[in-house]
Structures are given as structure tokens and as C-alpha cells.
């Protein structure tokens, strides 16, 4: 497409053309109206002058006879800028006046007519036009009084000229303006297109140029930029995930491979083979779990899990998870307690349950009282130090689902770090786990427009899922009496 073709195809240019047409139409009708009215006005003026003079001269003829008439006519005809006068005898002969020649037949019919004429004193042969009234006087004498139409014609000419010029100006200015605006818009659109093409080619960091005028194109560019920002963040997230998958799945895969290789190399007993195979299956199950967790985080972070939301009570989630993990905690020498107040939520129940389960699993794994206390002997550790408390409550517009332990906690500097994928603060990695628990909890909180807060429980860790309370059903549920805190041994 040529540059010009592109230009005239722009919306701005087309709009200009449409406006141009409208304005031209408007100017033409305005001038037309003006011309028509002026013409009417001049004609009216002529007829009223002629009518007055006709009755005046008829009067003179009636009072003073033919002589008086001829005298009056000659007198009037000599004045500068005089009207047209002609008096004819019943045989058609001109008796007085200033008209040299007339279109034939004009004198024969009474009333108004438009006619070509020539004055007596005129030398040129140019035809003039006049508006004239012929009146029959008594005795067959006829009187013509008229006025030249040159004035009317000139005025009409001026209006026509004005119309021509104004049309020309409108068209030139309109086209020029249209091309100017279209080029301006086109330049900006071209800049945007260029950026988009760069982005499509893979450079996700490109951003559309945003002007300072704050017009609709700027707003569009700003919105597109915000969209690009989000896309880039998602892409970075995706890349991070795949990097992490590559990194953290390769290690167990290598381990898996090494074990299989080792078992194959050693000519062992059947029991040894069996053991190696069982460990292989165990290891691959762990891999699958890690993989699932990663996918789930990715889905939660990308907002795909939003489709499956309903209303439920956070207290039920807390009680359900307490019920599921209570025996496990007891096996680990801890006491899992739950304290709930009815707190309605709108969200993905399954994901929130899993997030809370992850926090509880962490508390069971890492929330044991610190060694210094244990050094005094198991009896010295107060029973409450082995408590893990799951709590569901409301705090203003938030629903808080928290898990509190009395373990070593997480130093403040490490808290932000702890939420990242595959981060396991316990360097020795003696506890089983993928390092994805807090990442998933955090992603679930973000999905519900909430956040995961890690705080000091003096001593211990307080991990809290702070989620926005659901608006609609909150009041109904809040009216119910809070559940009595319960302790299950």
C-alpha cells in the first residue's frame, strides 16, 4: 500500500471527508438562502417603487392630460439613475421616455414582465434587462415604468463568487486539515504498530509510546502497556517455573537414574532388585507430587483457577484440616488445636484447604521447640510449647486463617525468601518436602486477592492467609454466635 493510500484509508481522513461534505453543504445552503432572500428583497423594492410611480403618473395624466404626462416623463427621464419610462400612443408610436428599444410585444400586454431593453442615449449594443410594469391609460395610451435589474444581477454575482470561494476554501482547508490530522494519527499508529511488531518478534520489554496529551490514543497505549506488563510478568513467571522445574526435577531424576544403574550393575539378589525398584517408584512418586504442586502454583498464579469458586465458611476449612492432621501432629509429638469463629469466604475451597494444609505440615515439620529448651530434658518443655494452633477469624474486611507454632520461626530477613519456589530454609534438607508449600500457599492467597503473611509468634512462626471476606453472605453468618474454642487432645 502506498503512503497516500494508507493516508486516505485512515479513519481520521474519512471522517474529515464526511465533515467536509457536510460543511460544504451547509455553506452552500446558507449562501443560497442569502441569495434568494436578497433577490426577493430587491424585486420587492423595485415593484413598490414602480407601483408608486405608476399611480403618481396616472394621476398626473388624469389631471393634466397628455401634455402634463409627457412633460413629467421627460423630466423624470433626465434625472441621473432614472427609471425606465415609455409612453406610447394608441397606434404604438413612442411619445415620451428614455427607452430606445424593447423586446417585441412587451407594450402590448399589461402587467409585470421582465424584458430586455436599450436606453435612448446608449451607444453600446449590450442588452440590459429590466423589470417593468405596463399600464393602460385612458384613450389607448400606454405607460411603461421599469427598473434596471443590473443591481440584482451584480448582487447575485457577488453571492455566487462568494459561494465559489468559500467552497474552495472549505475544500482546501478541510482536505489539508484532514491530511494533517490523518498523518498525525497515522504516525502514532505506525509507531504503535512498529512496537507491536517488535514485541511479536520476541522483544517483550518493548512498550508503546505514550504522549502527554492524555487523549484516547494515549489511554489506549497506556492500557496496552499495562497489558504487556502483565504478559511479561506471566512470561517471566513461566520462564522461572520452567527453569525451576528443569533445575529441581533434574536432581531427583539423576538420583533415580543412578539408583537404577547401580542396581543393574550389581548382580544382586532378587530382594535387592526389588528394593531398588521400590525406591525407584517412591522417588518417581515424589517427582510427580512436585510436578503437580508446580502446575498448581502456576495455575493459581495465572488466575486460571478462578472458575471454581463458591461460598463457604473458613471455620469449616480450619476444622477439616485440623481433623485430618491432628493424628499426624500427635505422632510427631505435637498438639494440634483449632480455634474458629465463623468467617465466610468466597473462593476455591479445595485450594484454600490445601494452602492451609501446607502451613500445618510445615508447622508439624519445623515447628518443634528449639533445642535449647529440649536440652533441659523433655519434661522441662512446657506442654504449650508443643502446641500448634489453627485459627480462623475475621479481622475487619479480612478473613484470617493462621497457623501458629512455637518452633524456631523464620528470621525476618528470610521471610520474603521463604515464599519463593523450591526454597527450603533448612539447609540440611533432612525433612522430606519439595520446598513448594509456602509458594503454593502464597499463590493461593494471591489468587483470592489476599496475601500470605509470615510473622513472629514469640517464639515461633505465625503463618497467616489473609483473604478478603465475602461481602454478600458475611452479615448473615456474622450474626451467628462465634463457635466456642475447642481443644481436641
Amino acid at each position, binding site marked *: 500500500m502506498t503512503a497516500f493510500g494508507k493516508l486516505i484509508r485512515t479513519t481520521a481522513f474519512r471522517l474529515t471527508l464526511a465533515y467536509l461534505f457536510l460543511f460544504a453543504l451547509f455553506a452552500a445552503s446558507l449562501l443560497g438562502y442569502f441569495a434568494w432572500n436578497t433577490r426577493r428583497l430587491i424585486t420587492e423594492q423595485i415593484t413598490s417603487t414602480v407601483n408608486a410611480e405608476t399611480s403618481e403618473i396616472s394621476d398626473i395624466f388624469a389631471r393634466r392630460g397628455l401634455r402634463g404626462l409627457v412633460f413629467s416623463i421627460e423630466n423624470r427621464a433626465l434625472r441621473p439613475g432614472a427609471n425606465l419610462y415609455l409612453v406610447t400612443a394608441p397606434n404604438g408610436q413612442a411619445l415620451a421616455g428614455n427607452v430606445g428599444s424593447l423586446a417585441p410585444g412587451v407594450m402590448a400586454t399589461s402587467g409585470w414582465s421582465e424584458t430586455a431593453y436599450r436606453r435612448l442615449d446608449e451607444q453600446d449594443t449590450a442588452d440590459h434587462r429590466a423589470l417593468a410594469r405596463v399600464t393602460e391609460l385612458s384613450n389607448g395610451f400606454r405607460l411603461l415604468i421599469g427598473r434596471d435589474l443590473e443591481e440584482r444581477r451584480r448582487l447575485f454575482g457577488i453571492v455566487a463568487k462568494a459561494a465559489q470561494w468559500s467552497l474552495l476554501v472549505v475544500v482546501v482547508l478541510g482536505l489539508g486539515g484532514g491530511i494533517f490530522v490523518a498523518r498525525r494519527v497515522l504516525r502514532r499508529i505506525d509507531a504503535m504498530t512498529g512496537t507491536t511488531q517488535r514485541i511479536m518478534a520476541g522483544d517483550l520489554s518493548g512498550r508503546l509510546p505514550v504522549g502527554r496529551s492524555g487523549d484516547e490514543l494515549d489511554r489506549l497505549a497506556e492500557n496496552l502497556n499495562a497489558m504487556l506488563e502483565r504478559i511479561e510478568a506471566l512470561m517471566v513467571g513461566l520462564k522461572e517455573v520452567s527453569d525451576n522445574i528443569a533445575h529441581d526435577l533434574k536432581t531427583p531424576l539423576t538420583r533415580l537414574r543412578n539408583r537404577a544403574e547401580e542396581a543393574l550393575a550389581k548382580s544382586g539378589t532378587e530382594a535387592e532388585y526389588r528394593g531398588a525398584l521400590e525406591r525407584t517408584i517412591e522417588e518417581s512418586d515424589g517427582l510427580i507430587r512436585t510436578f503437580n504442586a508446580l*502446575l498448581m502454583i502456576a495455575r493459581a498464579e495465572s488466575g486460571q483457577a478462578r472458575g*471454581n469458586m463458591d461460598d463457604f465458611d473458613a471455620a469449616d476449612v480450619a476444622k477439616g484440616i485440623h481433623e485430618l492432621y491432628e493424628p*499426624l501432629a500427635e505422632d510427631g509429638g505435637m498438639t494440634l488445636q483449632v480455634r474458629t469463629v465463623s468467617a465466610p469466604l468466597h473462593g476455591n475451597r*479445595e485450594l484454600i484447604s490445601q494452602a492451609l494444609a501446607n502451613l500445618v505440615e510445615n508447622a508439624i515439620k519445623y515447628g518443634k521447640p528449639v533445642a535449647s529448651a529440649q536440652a533441659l530434658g523433655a519434661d522441662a518443655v512446657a506442654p504449650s510449647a508443643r502446641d500448634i494452633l489453627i485459627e480462623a477469624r475475621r479481622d475487619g474486611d479480612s478473613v484470617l486463617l493462621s497457623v501458629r507454632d512455637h518452633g524456631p520461626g523464620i528470621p525476618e530477613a528470610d521471610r520474603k525468601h521463604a515464599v519463593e519456589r523450591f526454597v527450603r530454609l533448612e539447609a540440611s534438607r533432612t525433612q*522430606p518436602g519439595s520446598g513448594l508449600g509456602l509458594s503454593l500457599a502464597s499463590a493461593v492467597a494471591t489468587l483470592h486477592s489476599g496475601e500470605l503473611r509470615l510473622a513472629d509468634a514469640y517464639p515461633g512462626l505465625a503463618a497467616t492467609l489473609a483473604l478478603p471476606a465475602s461481602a454478600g453472605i458475611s452479615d448473615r453468618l456474622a450474626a451467628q454466635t462465634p463457635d466456642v474454642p475447642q481443644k481436641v487432645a
Partner: protein
Amino acid sequence: MRLLIIEDDRESADYLVKAFREVGYVADLAGDGEEGLSLADSGDYDVLVVDRMLPKRDGLSLIGALREKGNRTPVLILSALGQVDDRIKGLRAGGDDYLPKPYSFAELLARVEVLSRRHGGPTEETTYRVGDLELDRLSHRVARGKDELTLQPREFRLLEYLMKHAGQVVTRTMLLENVWDYHFDPQTNVIDVHISRLRSKIDKGFERPLLHTIRGAGYMIRDGIR
């Protein structure tokens, strides 16, 4: 038991057919959705194992077409899409169970056996009996021999599920799904702890253990040793 496996990946399909034949089942194979639909419609199968993504006709539409024709054969959906909402979509489409890939054959086998039992089995009984263990579903009474056992509500539901499928392997995920209604993978052995508590209540002090651990698969309640 007659099974139809509808799976387009040749290798996993052959593996499944072989594995099912080894445990004594008749397994037929269909490689795409159309073939699967006509076989499932004409053949008399106890359970269909359907991959979700199939050439010619996808798994969910296949199940929908079957159900429309009034075919109620239990269907287990296999899918690489393992998320909660995918599972719900699958079950809404008419599937009876949903197993995300990758799965262990033990898990698949356990679920297929439960499905086939559900289909052809007798109507729900009110009392389950395994050996001298007796569970009354209406009065919530559990007794072993002459001893009355006191179970927590969740332990009762756990035992109820195990006894409903007595003689069948029940996997940990099946327990988590059916007793607790959670569909996520706990990273810990949380189910094992519940089982061991239950076991201490129903087996401790008795000569013949009823609740068995099946290595690499799950648990089974039955009288006597396999």
C-alpha cells in the same frame, strides 16, 4: 471382568492391556474416540477406561454420547489434566472416576475394581461384616467379636469405606477423596497415621489382623491373608 481401554498412545495402551490381562481381566483396546464409542456401545463391558484427549472424538464427548444412548457402564477418565476443575468437568460429563496422569497401575487397578463392584454389586447393605468385625451403618455401632469398639466419627467413616470395599485394595488418594473429600496430594503420610490409629482400635489384641497394608498400593480390609 471385561474392560475396554480407549487410549491413543500405543505404548501406554499396550502396557495397560498387558497389565490387566496379568491380573486376570479381559481387556480390549480402542485407539481413537470413534472406534471407542462403537466398541463401548456394542460390547458388554464392566468398566471403560477412557483417555481424555483422543483423536477423532475427545473423551468427554464420547462419554456424553454413551450416556445419551442410555449406556450406564462405569467410566474412569484418565487425563494429563489433573487439576480440580478438570476433574469436576470430567465427572460432570458423566465420568464416574477421574485419575490424573501419571498414575500407578496399582491405583488404576484399585479404582477399576471399585467401579466394577459399584456397577454390578448388590444394593447398599446396612451392615458390613469382615470376619468377626461388624459395622452397623444405621446405628453407627462397631463391634469385633463380643467387644464393642468406640470410634471417632471420622474413624467410623474410614472403616465404613474400607469395609464397603472389603477384599479390594483401597489407595491413599481414594481414601482422601472419599472419606475427607480432599483432592490434593498431601506431602506427608497423613493417611497412614489415621490408618494406624484405626488399626490399633480394630486389630490390637486380636489374633487375626483384618486391616492389611498392600505395599506400593494402599490398604485392604479382609479376613485372612492373601
